[in-house]
C-alpha cells in the first residue's frame, strides 16, 4: 500500500514531464540549483570535521533546527505543501488510515525539496567521518531529522488549513513572506555586525534546541562525541516521542478534515464599480479600469507595489555601507524601469481570460494604451517621488534635472518596450490565484530570455540621457543636466507612443495566436 502510493507519486512526476520537454528542462535547472546549494553546504560540513567537536555540534544543531523550522513555516505562507497527492482525493477509497498517512508522508521524499533535505541531513555524517560509530548515529539522526521536517510541514499545513484556505490569507501571507527575502542584504549586513554576540549566545540556544523537536536528532552525535551515550539514548527516545506525536497529531487532523470536508468559504464583501467610475467609458478606459483593479486586487501585481517601499531601504543600506549617499540617486531610474517592466508580461498574466479581448474585437492600440494608463496611474507618482526626493534631501539639487530626465525616460520608454514585448512574447507565469512568487515549472529558459532582452533594451534606451549626466559630472556644466531632462522626456514620450502603436499593430495581426500561446501556459 505504502509502496503503491510512492509509485503513484513517481508516475505523476514522470508524466508531468511528458507535457513538454521544457518542463523537464525547468525542473532540471531547479534541481541543479538546489543540488549546488546542497553540495556547497555539505562541503561546509566536511570542513566542520576540522573543528573542535563541541563547536561542530553546535553549528550542526543550529543549522538543522533552522531548516526544520523552515519546513514547518514556509509551506504555510509561501508555497503550500506539495499537493500532487492531495489527501482529499483519497476520501472515496477505503485506505487504512495508518498506511495512507505513511504513504503520504514518505511521498514527500519524491520531490526536489524532500530529496535535497534528506541528502543534506544525511551529509552530517561527513562531519564525524573519523569516528565510524558516531558517523552511523549521525546518519540515523539525519534521516529521522528529514522525516521530522516532512511531518512538521504536514502538521502545520493541515492544522492551519482552515485559516490558510481563505484566499485573502494566502494572498497577503504570500507577499508578506517575500519582504524578508528582499531585505536579505540589509539583514545579513546587520547580522554580520552582531556575529560575535550570536556566537556567545549559541551554546545556550543549542542546549534548548537540542531538546526541542527542531534539533533533537541533530544533537545525537554530539552526545556520543562528548562521551555521554546515556544522554544520547535518552535524546533518541525523546526525539522518537516527538516524531510519533507530530505524526499522530497530523494524522488525526487529516482524518478530521477528510471526514468533514471543508466547504470553500466565499467572501461576502460587496464591491462597487470601483475603477470603472474613474476612467472614461471607452474601450481604452475600460481596459485601464480593469488593469488598475488588478493592480490593487491581484497579488501578482500587488507584489510589485510592495517592492516600491522596500527598494529605497535596500539601496540606503548599500549606500551607507559604501559610504557614498549618492547611490540613492539610482532610485528614480531603477523604480522607473521596474514599474515599466511589471506590465511586460501583462497578457501572460491575463491567461485565458484574454479571450474576452479577442472575442470582443478590441483594437490592439486600445488594449495597449489602457494597460499603460493603469500602470502610469501608480508608476508616475512613484517614479517622480523617487527621482525628486533623493537629490533634494541629499542637498544635491544640481543633479535633479538629469536624474529626473533619466527616470522619466526609464519609465516612459520602458512602458513602450513593455507594450511591444507583451504583445508578442508570452511565457509561463504564475496563474491567476497562484502565489506571485511561484515559478511555474518549465518557465526557465524562455522566461529568462524574454526578460533579459526586455530589460536589456530598456537599459540601452537610457544611454543618451545617461551620457549627458556623465558629461555634466565630468565638466561640471549644469547645462548638460537640463539637456538630459529634455532629451529624456522627449525620447521617452516618443518611444511610448511608438511602442503603443507598434504593440497595437502586432496585437491586431496576431491576437488569436497570442491567445493560443497563453492557453498553452496553463
Amino acid at each position: 500500500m505504502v509502496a503503491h502510493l510512492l509509485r503513484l507519486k513517481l508516475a505523476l512526476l514522470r508524466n508531468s514531464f511528458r507535457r513538454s520537454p521544457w518542463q523537464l528542462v525547468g525542473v532540471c535547472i531547479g534541481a541543479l540549483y538546489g543540488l549546488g546549494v546542497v553540495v556547497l553546504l555539505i562541503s561546509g560540513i566536511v570542513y566542520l570535521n576540522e573543528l573542535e567537536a563541541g563547536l561542530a555540534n553546535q553549528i550542526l544543531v543550529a543549522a538543522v533546527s533552522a531548516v526544520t523550522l523552515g519546513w514547518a513555516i514556509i509551506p504555510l505562507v509561501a508555497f503550500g505543501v506539495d499537493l500532487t497527492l492531495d489527501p482529499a482525493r483519497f476520501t472515496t477509497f477505503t485506505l487504512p488510515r495508518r498506511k495512507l498517512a505513511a504513504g503520504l508522508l514518505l511521498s514527500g521524499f519524491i520531490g526536489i525539496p524532500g530529496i535535497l533535505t534528506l541528502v543534506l541531513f544525511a551529509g552530517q555524517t561527513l562531519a564525524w567521518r573519523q569516528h565510524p560509530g558516531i558517523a552511523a548515529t549521525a546518519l540515523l539522526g539525519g534521516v529521522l531529522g528529514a522525516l521530522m521536517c516532512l511531518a512538521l510541514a504536514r502538521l502545520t499545513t493541515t492544522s492551519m488549513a482552515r485559516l490558510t484556505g481563505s484566499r485573502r490569507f494566502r494572498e497577503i501571507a504570500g507577499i508578506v513572506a517575500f519582504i524578508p527575502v528582499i531585505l536579505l542584504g540589509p539583514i545579513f549586513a546587520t547580522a554580520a555586525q552582531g556575529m560575535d554576540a550570536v556566537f556567545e549566545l549559541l551554546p545556550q540556544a543549542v542546549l534548548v534546541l537540542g531538546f526541542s523537536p527542531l534539533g533533537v536528532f541533530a544533537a545525537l552525535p554530539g552526545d556520543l562525541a562528548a562521551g555521554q551515550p546515556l544522554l544520547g539514548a535518552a535524546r533518541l527516545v525523546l526525539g522518537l516521542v516527538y516524531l510519533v506525536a507530530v505524526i499522530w497529531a497530523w494524522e488525526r487532523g487529516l482524518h478530521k478534515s477528510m471526514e468533514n470536508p471543508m466547504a470553500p468559504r466565499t467572501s461576502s464583501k460587496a464591491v462597487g464599480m470601483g475603477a470603472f467610475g474613474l476612467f472614461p467609458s471607452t474601450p481604452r478606459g475600460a481596459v485601464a479600469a480593469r488593469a488598475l483593479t488588478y493592480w490593487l486586487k491581484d497579488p501578482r501585481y500587488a507584489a510589485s507595489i510592495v517592492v516600491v517601499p522596500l527598494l529605497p531601504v535596500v539601496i540606503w543600506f548599500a549606500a551607507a555601507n559604501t559610504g557614498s549617499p549618492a547611490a540613492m540617486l539610482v532610485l528614480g531610474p531603477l523604480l522607473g524601469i521596474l514599474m515599466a517592466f511589471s506590465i511586460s508580461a501583462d497578457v501572460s498574466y491575463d491567461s485565458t481570460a484574454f479571450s474576452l479581448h479577442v472575442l470582443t474585437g478590441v483594437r490592439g492600440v486600445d488594449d495597449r494604451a489602457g494597460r499603460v494608463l493603469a500602470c502610469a496611474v501608480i508608476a508616475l507618482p512613484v517614479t517622480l517621488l523617487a527621482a525628486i526626493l533623493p537629490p533634494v534631501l541629499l542637498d544635491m539639487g544640481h543633479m535633479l534635472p538629469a536624474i529626473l530626465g533619466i527616470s522619466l525616460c526609464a519609465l516612459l520608454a520602458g512602458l513602450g518596450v513593455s507594450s511591444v514585448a507583451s504583445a508578442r512574447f508570452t511565457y509561463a507565469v504564475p496563474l491567476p490565484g497562484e502565489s506571485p512568487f511561484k515559478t511555474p515549472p518549465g518557465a526557465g529558459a524562455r522566461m529568462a530570455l524574454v526578460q533579459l532582452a526586455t530589460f536589456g533594451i530598456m537599459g540601452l534606451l537610457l544611454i543618451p540621457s545617461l551620457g549627458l549626466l556623465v558629461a555634466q559630472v565630468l565638466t561640471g556644466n549644469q547645462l548638460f543636466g537640463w539637456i538630459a531632462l529634455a532629451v529624456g522626456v522627449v525620447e521617452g514620450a516618443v518611444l511610448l507612443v511608438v511602442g503603443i502603436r507598434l504593440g497595437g499593430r502586432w496585437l491586431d495581426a496576431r491576437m488569436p495566436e497570442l491567445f493560443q500561446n497563453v492557453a498553452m501556459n496553463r
Partner: protein
Amino acid sequence: MSISNTPEGTPALSIRSLGKRFGENVAVNGISLDVPAGSFFGLVGPNGAGKTTALSMATGLLRPDAGQVWLNGIDVWAEPLRAKAAMGVLADGVRLFDRLSGRQLVTYAGLLRGMDRDTVKERTDDLLRVLDLEDAGNKLVVDYSAGMSKKIALATALIHSPRVLVLDEPFEAVDPVSAANIRDILADYVSHGGTVIVSSHVMDLVQRMCSHVAVIAGGNLLAVGTVDEVRAGASLEERFVDLVGGRGNNEGLSWLHTS
C-alpha cells in the same frame, strides 16, 4: 433584439472546408456546413470530436489551417472586427477576469465593445436580474460557483445584443432552474430573429431545444440537417450512437450483478 438586415437567405454562419491539425493529430477535418439564420442549431459529438476547435475557428479564437468562415456573409478571418461585432460567444474552458465583480465584468465586456455607459448599465442590470445573479453581482467572480461563472460569462456574451450567439457547452454545471431560464431566454431570442449555435453532449436537451443539429466525431461531419431529418424517426440519442459508433456490448460485467 435587432432583426437581421442581411439579404434574405444568407446563412448566419457558413463554414467551408474548415480544417485544423495539431502536429500529427487532425482535430477538424475539412468541415463544411451552413447554419440557417433564425435557427437554433445544436452541435453534438463525443468528447474530443473537435467541437470546441471548430467553434474556436468560427469565432476568431483559433486561426484555421484551411477553409473559410462567414458570419452573416462577413468573412470572419478577413474582417474580424466586423464579424466579432455581430456575434456573442461563450467559450468553453477559458478563465474570466475573476478579480472583477460580476457587475464589473459584464460592464467591462460592454465597454470593450464600444457601447455607451447608460446602455451598458441598463442591460447589465437586466441580465443580472434574469440570470438570478442580482445578489451576487457585487461579489468577485473568483468566489462564484461553476454554474454562476457560466451564467456571468453568458451575460458578457449577450450584452451587445448580437445577431448570432455561439455557446460552447452553456449548460455545464448550471442548476436546472437557471438552465430552464437560460433556455427560455435563448428560445425568445430565436423567435425574434436571432440565431443560436450551441455545442452539447446532452442529446435529450438538443432534441427538445434545437431546430437543427450537426453531428461531428473525430473531426468529421457525420450528419447535418433539421433535428427531425437527422434523427429519422428514432431518438436523437439512438441516431447519435448509430452514427458515432463505439458502443461496446455489456456482456462483460456479469460479476456486477449483485444478486
